[in-house]
């Protein structure tokens, strides 16, 4: 019997620029990049040098603090360049991809018929462990831990994101194998969140605790699912993983090959060709977007609420399955601060008439719609925070770097994306996600 996860607080953002539900094969990228900054707090140690020949699945780098946290090559090819920044920090590891891939053979394994420790060892030694993220802190999972549960959300409630019913439609078998492998990693349950209002093949997945999600964003956030089922306490560890990455793990068990296929959805009003593209993890943006987008627009690896701004000659982030392109909002708006003016811009506040049209779809751009100010208005953060967290108090504790207060107010239960809507609706235009990330970083160094 599935468990219902139903929330009331939050915000459903209806935005223009959705993708159509068709999948196309993207052009094969000439280069792909692995970006150590995609794995928060990971200090990379390179295994291979520039010019090295690689098969898909060959180890590229590992974490300075745990050699079981490994990143392997998504393609076969030649390591072209290790881009470094200040203090020789590795920014990008760029690999030139071959036309036809050679795969490292890891051998076939049925996780259900294999011992837990062997499954775990396989996942972490072959670089699949990097797909697992640890809560608290949202950092790569530590192979030494046994999490109390593993969470997968196959229902993204953020605006302009991929539907996993489309992404996973021809990967069901691998997805199931991946789930089977995950069950061997935890003593607890593997939770799978799905859309309550849409019955699909996802409802028939076995060996999971099914959560049927309903309500506005952030209903589908993993943080919400954890909070509604087994809330995090101090000292506990939970792992989370994206649905398509589960399928990658499954495929590696089923076929012995590391097939880093990433189905990327292109969304946003400034993108002209909006659909799903089959590409590869870390592919160059130009191979997916080509030049099919408007000028003066922003390319975001991820969704409009939590993604990262990237350049057109750059690469899609490791975990991203969305490329959003929206117009830049670098223009002045006369008397735009008057109440009830410019109702074509969405506002969760009642000082705009946009609330009268809950089903209207909005055009969005990147304008800040104001300037950053001191925190004055109270009560608005609570409106979009379904977790039992006092958002403003937690933000202030993070700003002050008060460890005891952060812990008391529930810092372990949140990651930056849980504060995305707080950031969106905030009158004072504060960067809530950045503040929470900094708070988490303080906790990592002080508490661990």
């Amino acid at each position: 019997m599935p468990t219902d996860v139903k929330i009331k607080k939050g915000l459903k953002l209806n935005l223009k620029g959705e993708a159509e539900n068709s999948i196309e094969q993207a052009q094969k990228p000439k280069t792909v990049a692995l970006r150590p900054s995609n794995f928060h707090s990971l200090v990379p140690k390179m295994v291979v040098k520039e010019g090295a020949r690689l098969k898909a699945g060959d180890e590229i780098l590992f974490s300075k603090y745990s050699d079981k946290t490994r990143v392997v090559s998504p393609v076969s090819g030649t390591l072209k360049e290790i881009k470094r920044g200040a203090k020789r920090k590795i920014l990008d590891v760029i690999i030139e991809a071959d036309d036809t891939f050679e795969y490292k053979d890891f051998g076939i394994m049925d996780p259900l018929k294999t011992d837990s420790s062997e499954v775990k060892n396989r996942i972490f030694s072959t670089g699949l462990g990097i797909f697992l993220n640890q809560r608290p802190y949202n950092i790569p999972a530590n192979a030494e831990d046994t999490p109390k549960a593993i969470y997968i959300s196959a229902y993204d409630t953020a605006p302009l994101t991929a539907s996993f019913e489309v992404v996973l439609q021809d990967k069901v078998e691998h997805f199931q194998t991946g789930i089977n492998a995950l069950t061997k990693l935890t003593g607890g349950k593997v939770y799978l969140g799905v859309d309550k209002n849409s019955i699909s093949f996802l409802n028939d997945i076995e060996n999971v605790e099914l959560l049927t999600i309903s309500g506005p964003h952030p209903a589908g956030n993993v943080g919400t699912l954890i909070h509604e089922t087994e809330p995090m306490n101090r000292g506990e560890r939970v792992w989370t993983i994206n649905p398509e990455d589960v399928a990658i793990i499954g495929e590696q068990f089923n076929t012995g090959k590391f097939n880093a296929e990433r189905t990327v959805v292109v969304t946003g009003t400034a993108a002209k060709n909006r659909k799903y593209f089959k590409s590869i993890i870390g592919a160059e943006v130009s191979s997916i977007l080509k030049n099919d987008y408007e000028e003066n627009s922003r390319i975001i690896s991820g969704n409009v609420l939590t993604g990262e701004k990237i350049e057109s000659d750059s690469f899609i982030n490791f975990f991203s399955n969305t490329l959003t392109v929206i117009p830049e909002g670098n223009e002045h708006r006369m008397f735009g601060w008057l109440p009830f003016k410019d109702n074509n811009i969405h506002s969760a506040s009642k000082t705009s008439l946009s609330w009268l049209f809950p089903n209207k779809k909005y055009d969005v751009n990147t304008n800040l719609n104001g300037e950053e100010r001191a925190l004055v208005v109270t009560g608005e953060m609570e409106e979009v925070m379904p977790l039992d967290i006092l958002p403003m108090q937690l933000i202030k504790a993070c700003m002050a770097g008060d460890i005891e207060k952060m812990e008391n107010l529930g810092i372990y239960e949140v990651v930056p994306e849980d504060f995305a809507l707080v950031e969106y609706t905030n009158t004072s235009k504060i960067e809530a996600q950045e503040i929470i990330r900094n708070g988490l970083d303080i906790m990592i160094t002080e508490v661990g």
Partner: protein
Amino acid sequence: MNWIRQKIDQIKEPFEPGNKLEKYRPAVNALDTFLFVPDHTTKKGAHIRDAVDLKRTMITVVLALIPALIFGMWNAGYQHYTQLGENPAIFEAILHGAYKIVPMIVVSYAVGLGLEFAFAIMRGHEVNEGYLVTGLLIPMIMPVDIPLWMVALSVIFAVLIGKEAFGGTGMNILNPALTARAFAFFAYPTYMSGNKIWVSEASNVDTISGETILGSLAANKEVTYNAAEMFTGVIPGSISETSTLCIAAGALILILTKVADWRIILSGVIGAAAMGLLLNALPSLGVEGNGLTNFAWYNHLIVGGFAFGIVFMATDPVSAAQTMKGKWIYGALIGLTAILIRTLNPAYPEGIMLSILLLNVFAPTIDHYVIQGNIKKRHKRLSMKTVKTA
């Protein structure tokens, strides 16, 4: 529009970073952003943002104040002419009120915004919009005959001691507008209380006394106004506090736009009504009470500054309680203590000012206990867990 924009950019040129007048940038920006919402874009995180900003929020409060302000001007003129035995036209009355009140507003904004700009330049941050509301509130809660220099002095005290000393907008403990009024009240009591100050130029007229209703009750005099007059506000008092009707219109704007928290207003009214009922019941308990305690509880809600205070001052989000439960407690306590001070302390026939300032001070304490509740839940969950696994 483009040529205006170009002109402004041209004027701003010397203030851009790296140029000569760079440090005066916040002042120029403050003026510019009143014409145009700036072209600033998001950097990371949420790449899109809500249309609301602090300017819009503050302007909404100013809009909500307009009905009470216009009525206040009319009433100032009306009270002035009727004490002389004349019957003024609406326009004439407003004109007299405006003649008295507009200079007060000008002084309040000029002095207050001057200080705000100076602090913004000194501290290198943008000018916050909060003073747009504070600067209008201060004249609205003063007696109509107060000298302009006193307005200026009160504003200086409120901005310097009430706000900037604590770190500026968002950090102040007390409501700045009430700080200004409290300053004037204690520094110049003869201009802030008595029976000659509530009606414009009443001190020039010997025979007539323009006392407030609460003042008359405290002095055990007969009240000659009926409930309708008290509600519409055709009575003497501070400039904009008299009309419960116009204040209710403002409250409606604030509640519908969610700029003010309805919880504070509602719990405040409930608290005041409860205290009023309790005091009204004193005679049946064998206690005699006084003119104020025996004043009907519903009348307490519509005379004096209670309505204005609970709608426009208690709801100031910075100095109020910030948690949801805290707001209920905060509002109710303001209502209770306002009527308590009003009725039982003959030295202060109006209690709302002191009760809001008092609860401003206690708001962080109220919040502290609400927050502890949230923390305890978390600790309990942890200890339950440890018991289970042990």
